[in-house]
């Protein structure tokens, strides 16, 4: 029974969120605020239970999980991140608000510095290496021409795409002449890549929608689907009719004139 009620609450909230397709309405607002509130409460609990309690309080002050086989002793190194976290709260006290900048400086400085190595490695070196046709052709050496030739063409196209896209991202040279030509090919390559990415992601989204629709149609009423199918179809028809019948959004020109 509890599962049944829970499923119907989930189905109802899904429909409330979907009602945003029509326009902002009290049902959507209710679902929105409930969603944000629950998410925030969950995150607060998550941070407390998985970070603050075990990694700060549990390491410095008290043994929160006593184990007779393990001797607990405080690890005062964990005071450093704890104090940095606490001084973030000084933002609420105007007189010592400036202290919070230390923690911010640490986070931003550490982040920027720490990322130099991984970014250089994964975004630059590894990409350059993977663009060499010799590297790409390794699995095909000795393969029959039917496999070898398409792979070679693919490796050469990949190489050209990489170079021309790099040329597009030259900022301190005017896109004229050879650089202009390369940049033009580069932006076409980018658009083709974005188009392919768009198509595959839309397919993934449709699959998500199908999953949710199946949830509404099947899970919401495990025994006999007639009522939930009718309800869902009815709501979907109302939503679609509302979208079709809705006024077109005001154009930017007309808004500017307001």
């Amino acid at each position, binding site marked *: 029974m509890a599962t049944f009620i829970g499923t119907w609450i989930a189905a109802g909230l899904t429909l409330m*969120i979907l009602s*945003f397709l029509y*326009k*902002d309405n009290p049902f*959507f607002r209710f*679902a*929105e605020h409930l*969603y*944000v509130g629950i*998410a*925030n409460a969950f995150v607060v609990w998550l941070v407390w239970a998985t970070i603050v309690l075990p990694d700060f309080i549990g390491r410095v002050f008290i043994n929160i999980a006593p184990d*007779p*086989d393990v001797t607990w002793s405080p690890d005062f190194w964990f005071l450093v991140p704890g104090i940095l976290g606490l001084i*973030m709260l000084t*933002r609420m006290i105007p007189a010592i608000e400036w202290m*919070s900048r230390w923690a*911010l400086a640490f*986070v*931003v400085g*550490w*982040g*920027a510095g720490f*990322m130099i190595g991984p*970014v250089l*490695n*994964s975004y630059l*070196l*590894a990409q*350059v*290496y993977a663009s*060499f*046709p*010799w590297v790409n*052709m390794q699995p095909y050496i*000795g393969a029959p021409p039917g496999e070898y030739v398409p792979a*070679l063409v693919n*490796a050469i196209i990949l190489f050209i795409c*990489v*170079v021309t896209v*790099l*040329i597009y*991202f*030259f*900022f*301190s*040279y*005017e896109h004229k002449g050879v650089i202009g030509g390369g940049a033009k090919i580069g932006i076409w390559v*980018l658009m083709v890549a*974005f*188009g392919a*990415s*768009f198509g595959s*992601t839309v397919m993934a*989204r449709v699959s998500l929608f199908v999953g949710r629709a199946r949830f509404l149609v099947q899970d919401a009423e495990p025994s006999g689907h007639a009522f939930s199918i009718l309800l869902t179809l009815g709501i979907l028809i109302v939503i679609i009719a509302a979208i079709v019948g809705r006024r077109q*959004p*005001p*154009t*930017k020109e007309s*808004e*500017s004139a307001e």
Partner: protein
Amino acid sequence: MVGERLRKHFYAAVFFAAYALTSPVFAAQPDVAVASPADREPPPITPPVLLEFEPPAEIEARDLPNDDGTSIVITWRCSPSAPEDVRYTVHFSEGASAPYEPLPFDFRSIGLDENFISDRLQYFPYSRSLRNYQFIIIDLTAFDAAAEGAYKQELKSYNKLLDEGKAAGPEPVMHEYDWDELYFKLGVTTDGAVRLFDPVLHAKPVTQWFDWSKFNNMAMAAIFLVVILFFIETARRRDFYIRRIAGLDAVDEAIGRATEMGRPIFYLCGLDPMTTVSTIAATNLLGHVARHVANYESQIKVPCFDPIVMSVCQETVREAYYEEGRPDAYNSDNIFFITNDQFSYVAAVNGMMVRERPAANFFFGFYYAESLLLGEVGQSTGAIQIAGTDSNVQIPFFITTCDYVLIGEELYAASAYISREPKLLGSIKASDMAKAVIIIALLLGFLFSIALLVGVLYDPVNPLGALGEKMEYFMQLFNEHI
């Protein structure tokens, strides 16, 4: 009389000896006393597939380079035998002459076509002659972990027996492995049967202070650092050209429009934390946008996904208002945290967009699946939308829903384009130089690749000889680790 007694004792002794020799109890005793678990483990008959396996050559053990001194590596030249279902394994002993046992921790045996040296260049130098060598890394800390695990288990059983009031025997003691006394043998295994090869392997792990496998990273970072500093210094003396970035020209227009319409501007910094480059770029750009907003006396709202990003945004906007001489107009409540959950954040921002109908939306930073939801709702409210992200997968969604999009690195260049600060201009110029170097390296690699691909038609094993090896080495310089 004495002879009679001696004869009886003699018969008794012969009878006892005959019984003792034939009795299974007595016969089994010596075996039980001497046998060790390792002797019992392998089946009595080694399968023919293992007996016929030609042993690999040049089996060696040595310290694993570029590590913290906790591992050793065993290398060998591949065996010409290649039967199916046979894998390499390693056994160990505590002392050169002690019996060899399976490793005391989970160890995945190595297939005949796995773990080639040429695939793990962070530990081995690149050379064509090492192409047929395989390796196994033994992490010696795993011995200690296994000993600790076994000790905890024994201690638990011991304590349980004590609690139940039963005889628990002596208190268990944790076994300590002496890393200097660990010896290994490489072997092959199939269906639980094992055949070990000579020689006995032994190596002492040594701690290295420097990981030479990342030297190419450091060299490249150092070179770029020098180039960046040079161009920053140059930018202080003369102005650099920066090509037009269409989306940024529209920023002023969008802010002006918001001012005219008396509606707010929404500025989003993405969903990534403050440690990512795109978020840093987004907050950098926020400063410039906020300066214009302060100038035009418009209103900017920054709904944040991350509390740290929120704090940075508050500082940035406040500084911008102070710089423009409008500290009174700054309202920290306009830069606020919503939630750390992706879709509830989207629901909240979309709701605000519909209710407050901002005149302009800026989506800068790193985005995930929410990009289309944000862009579409913003578009339906009629706002001018400018996006900038280095998330390749989300750029298409912004292109379809926004008026202007900064693609990838344009987001990083945007700050320099707007502010014309020497520091940022110098960085842009230096990154262009880096791209030019990369293009030259790519072209060289392309030429080498074509030469090697032609060479391989004539000599599949060693194309273009020593020159070809140098060409391969050049390309390996860009490998993740070398």
